[in-house]
């Protein structure tokens, strides 16, 4: 499951170009080979107009299984994924009608991986986990049977009768395991209910829930596959596994009865069925929550929510300001998703959302605590993700701005580039009296040993120095010196930029940002970073998405209708 560590060992021999690796760019190197090796070049979508659309208006993704071919790179990995605390909470809410979030508060903290909370490498399994699963299962079972409304929603007969118990086990078991239970599983659970619960119907009911919620078929998204796929090296998922992937990807929770029924009836057996089901799921409230969750992770908004500042240096900061700033980005993303606008335009949006407190940061008068749409087209300093208070707060230090963090955000979150950690022996440059943090950083980055990396990162942050740690426009820095505000994104628009909007224009036009939405949603959907084996799939998806305007819908639909979404690799996670 783990590849050999590829940490650079000889800094002197490493060029900036090699250090600055785009995840997708890495794939592109392999892509020349993979295109040459494709069995049928005519099937590849090599021009931007080549995307097929069903003549009857029905969505039909223009992929076939040749799109999985990436010669010499092996199969895409599909490691076993465990439910995240959020997925656990949402799924038990859906099945039992309880407030699932209350049961996962004490689950072990999972941390994040480049902003993402659902990556498989974060998913350990220790005594602390199983202890919490035990506690949660017992509490959920007890709460369901203590509330007649919740209980009657899942118990429709007398559980002391064996036929009733059997039906109960089958019904709840299907939802929890996300597939029908086998006869042996039903029998084993019935026996457990009788052994532990005796003849007490409520206790029988509870113990079934306790056992199901601690079972690995619930806690993991098990994908055994139904048989060989037409592509060598892959197994086709069975319909329930497809339903499960769809449900977790699009709604952040397990499939409901309707989706499982659809799977049982053959409705997910082909790409048209998957596309139709996905389109339907995307209209649900759960999908809306999930879209927000995706945006939250992509733009690393948890670091805004957890931000804290030196009150003396950053007096404008309050927790309510952070909440409003987070909500602004989520609203903006929701708008762009709903209106079918290109996601890269998020970086050059001409409006935002603000309440009174956030409006004061932006210099826009707004009344009240509710967020309202504010027009920013006439203000060259505002608009777009990089001009938002959320971006400023999420990338700031405790007492000032951090030009490196801002540059790294743009390179990694918006452009999906990979930056190396600092080499060993780096000692931060000492500040001189009366110097701003940015000036100290500038001297540090002039050091020939540090420059190769920092020239990629820092000029972006220097161009945003006019934004205070909470995003207030300022003409002088922490030390009282005037800010020149000249920025540059090496390799992208060499003429440079001034202010967040111009930076947003540069980034939005860049090839990296165009494909980054696809790569980011891929990470979100598959719970892992792309590998070289995914490069061909990502490339073909990115082309289709580009041809469809780079919208959120096209990103989502292209990924869930790609052949990769309905298969797993043959050798487990390798």
């Amino acid at each position: 499951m783990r590849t050999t560590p590829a940490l650079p060992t000889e800094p002197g021999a490493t060029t900036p170009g090699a250090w600055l690796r785009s995840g997708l760019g890495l794939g592109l190197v392999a892509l020349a080979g993979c295109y040459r090796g494709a069995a049928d070049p005519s099937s590849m979508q090599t021009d931007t107009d080549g995307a097929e659309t069903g003549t009857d208006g029905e969505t039909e993704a223009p992929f076939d299984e040749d799109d999985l071919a990436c010669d010499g790179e092996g199969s895409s990995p599909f490691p076993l994924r465990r439910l995240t605390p959020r997925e656990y909470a949402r799924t038990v809410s859906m099945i039992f009608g309880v407030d699932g979030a209350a049961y996962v508060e004490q689950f072990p903290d999972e941390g994040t991986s480049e902003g993402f909370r659902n990556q498989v490498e974060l998913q350990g399994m220790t005594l602390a986990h199983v202890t919490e699963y035990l506690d949660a299962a017992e509490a959920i079972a007890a709460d369901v049977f203590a509330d007649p409304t919740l209980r009657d929603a899942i118990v429709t007969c007398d559980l002391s009768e064996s036929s009733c118990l059997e039906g109960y086990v089958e019904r709840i078991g299907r939802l929890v395991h996300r597939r029908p239970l086998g006869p042996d599983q039903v029998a084993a659970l019935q026996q457990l209910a009788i052994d532990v619960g005796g003849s007490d119907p409520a206790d029988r009911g509870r113990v079934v829930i306790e056992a199901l919620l601690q079972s690995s078929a619930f806690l993991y998204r098990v994908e055994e596959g139904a048989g060989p796929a037409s592509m060598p090296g892959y197994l086709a998922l069975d319909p329930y596994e497809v339903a499960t992937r769809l449900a977790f990807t699009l709604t952040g929770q397990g499939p409901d009865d309707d989706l499982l029924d659809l799977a049982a009836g053959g409705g997910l057996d082909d790409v048209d069925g998957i596309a139709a089901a996905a389109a339907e799921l995307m209209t649900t409230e759960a999908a809306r929550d999930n879209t927000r969750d995706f945006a939250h992770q992509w733009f690393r908004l948890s670091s805004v929510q957890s931000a804290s500042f030196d009150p003396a240096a950053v007096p404008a900061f309050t927790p309510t300001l952070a909440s409003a700033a987070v909500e602004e980005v989520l609203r903006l993303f929701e708008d762009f998703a709903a209106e079918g606008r290109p996601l890269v335009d998020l970086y050059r949006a001409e409006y935002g959302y603000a309440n009174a407190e956030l409006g004061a940061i932006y210099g826009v008068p707004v009344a009240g605590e509710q967020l309202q749409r504010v027009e920013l087209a006439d203000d060259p300093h505002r608009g777009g993700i990089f001009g938002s208070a959320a971006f400023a707060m999420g990338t700031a230090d405790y007492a000032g701005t951090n030009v490196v963090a801002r540059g790294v955000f743009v390179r990694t979150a918006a452009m999906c580039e990979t930056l190396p950690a600092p080499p060993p022996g780096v000692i931060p440059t000492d500040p001189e009296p009366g110097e701003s943090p940015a000036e100290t950083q500038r001297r540090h980055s002039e050091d020939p040993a540090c420059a190769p990396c920092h020239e990629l990162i820092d000029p972006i942050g220097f161009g945003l120095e006019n934004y205070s740690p909470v995003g207030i426009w300022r003409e002088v820095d922490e030390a009282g010196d005037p800010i020149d505000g000249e920025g540059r994104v090496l390799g992208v628009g060499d003429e440079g930029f001034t202010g967040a909007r111009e930076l947003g224009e540069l980034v939005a036009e860049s090839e990296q940002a165009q494909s980054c939405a696809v790569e980011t949603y891929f990470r979100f959907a598959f719970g892992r970073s792309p590998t070289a084996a995914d490069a061909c799939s990502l490339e073909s998806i990115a082309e289709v998405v580009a041809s469809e305007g780079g919208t959120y819908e096209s990103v989502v639909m292209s990924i869930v209708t790609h052949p990769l979404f309905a298969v797993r690799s043959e050798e487990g996670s390798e």
Partner: protein
Amino acid sequence: MIGKNSRMSRRALLRGAGSIAIALPVLEAMLDDRGLLCGEAHAFGGSPLPRRMVLFHFPNGVPMDDWTPSTTGAGWALPPALESLAPFQDQVNVLTGLGNGFTSYLEGNKHDITAPSHFTCVEPVGAGGQYSSAGGISCDQLAAEAIGVGTKAPSLQVSLFASHTAQPIVNRMSYKGVDEPVGFYEDPKTLFDFLFAGLDVDPDAAGALADRRRSVLDYVQGSTADLQARLGAADQQRLEQHLEAIRELELSIAALPSEQCTLPADPGAVGAYDADIEGRVEALLGLSAMAIRCDLTRVLVFSMGCSSCPLTYDFLGFSDRDHALSHWPSGGTREDNTTMARWKVGRFARLLELLDAMPEGDGTMLDHTVLSCTSEIANGTAHDDVILPALVAGRVGGMQGGRHLVFPCDHSSPRHPSTAAYCGGGRTPLANLWLTMMQAVGVEVGSFADSTGTLEGLWV
């Protein structure tokens, strides 16, 4: 590789024979004045009193010139960073010269190297230019397998703060193996619930609940094993971890507190971690000490927080974060760092005080406990792990305290003048300390990671 033949504890054996494990009371009249019976510390019925291992960690190092005593052997004057140890100076040994040395050749931002390697003493691993895991098992987990089985928490990890979201690897110090981190409890209420909730029920009800849970877990184990058999090798490995965790859970749900246990008060919900750091540390220390007292754990890792975590000690007069200050002289000053370290070492002294106030046998809990106090880096200036600050304390097996012991070491950096004055060349792996401590509590291991032997001079 380490032998694991000592994994079966008395309790595990009892359980294997079909008994429900109960903590056997100590009949103090049967113990001699050292708490020993037949040459070993024993409880009623010939069972030894449990020995415990405590690894106390504080982040971001200390100016070594303010930490290292100016003389060796006994009778050293307390250096500024160790002043808070005064009441326990005769219980504590300062160990100079121990180190890991990974930062001297591995690439990374230091914290991603020093956190995962501190208790494992092997290089961290990762892919794509980022370290993501320790490279092997940590000494607390080895000890847990040997002496923790059958207790509520075979090992207990407690940290003031271990939720640094930007760089998760710095939050983890305990590992069962590669990619198997063991997380920290950070919140006093959560820690209390985990350790003590449900312990105040009557024994019959507790027994019935444990039986019920065992039945459910038997089902879970069976169905997980069925599933495991149908999966590929890598997925099987993940389910094996799960099954191992369930086996530990089965043992821990039957664990009952020892006779000498006094259930602490529920701390209730506490505010944000940074609202009252002092109160939070005190609560966590109290719960941890009582967990040892109650024999709910025998292996404790107590961390004063992760290195780059956003910890600010306003009660010490600082408005900058610990980590920012630790980059002295650019961030804070040497004096700032010594002040912070003095406070952190003071929390270690507080833990000694709590354990020494708990009678056991004819002495106190400290008689059967070995504790270390270390940081993952030395001077904040270089953030290196070549020669680390280290203390060892406790009277387990009659260990003597009160000395400054210097071990062969070498550090070419002029940033370490005080250690350079003592080190006569050579190297003493930090793993030697962990090996020494593990052996002191009865873990049957002959070596650990890159250890070259045990530390001499502690039992004289």
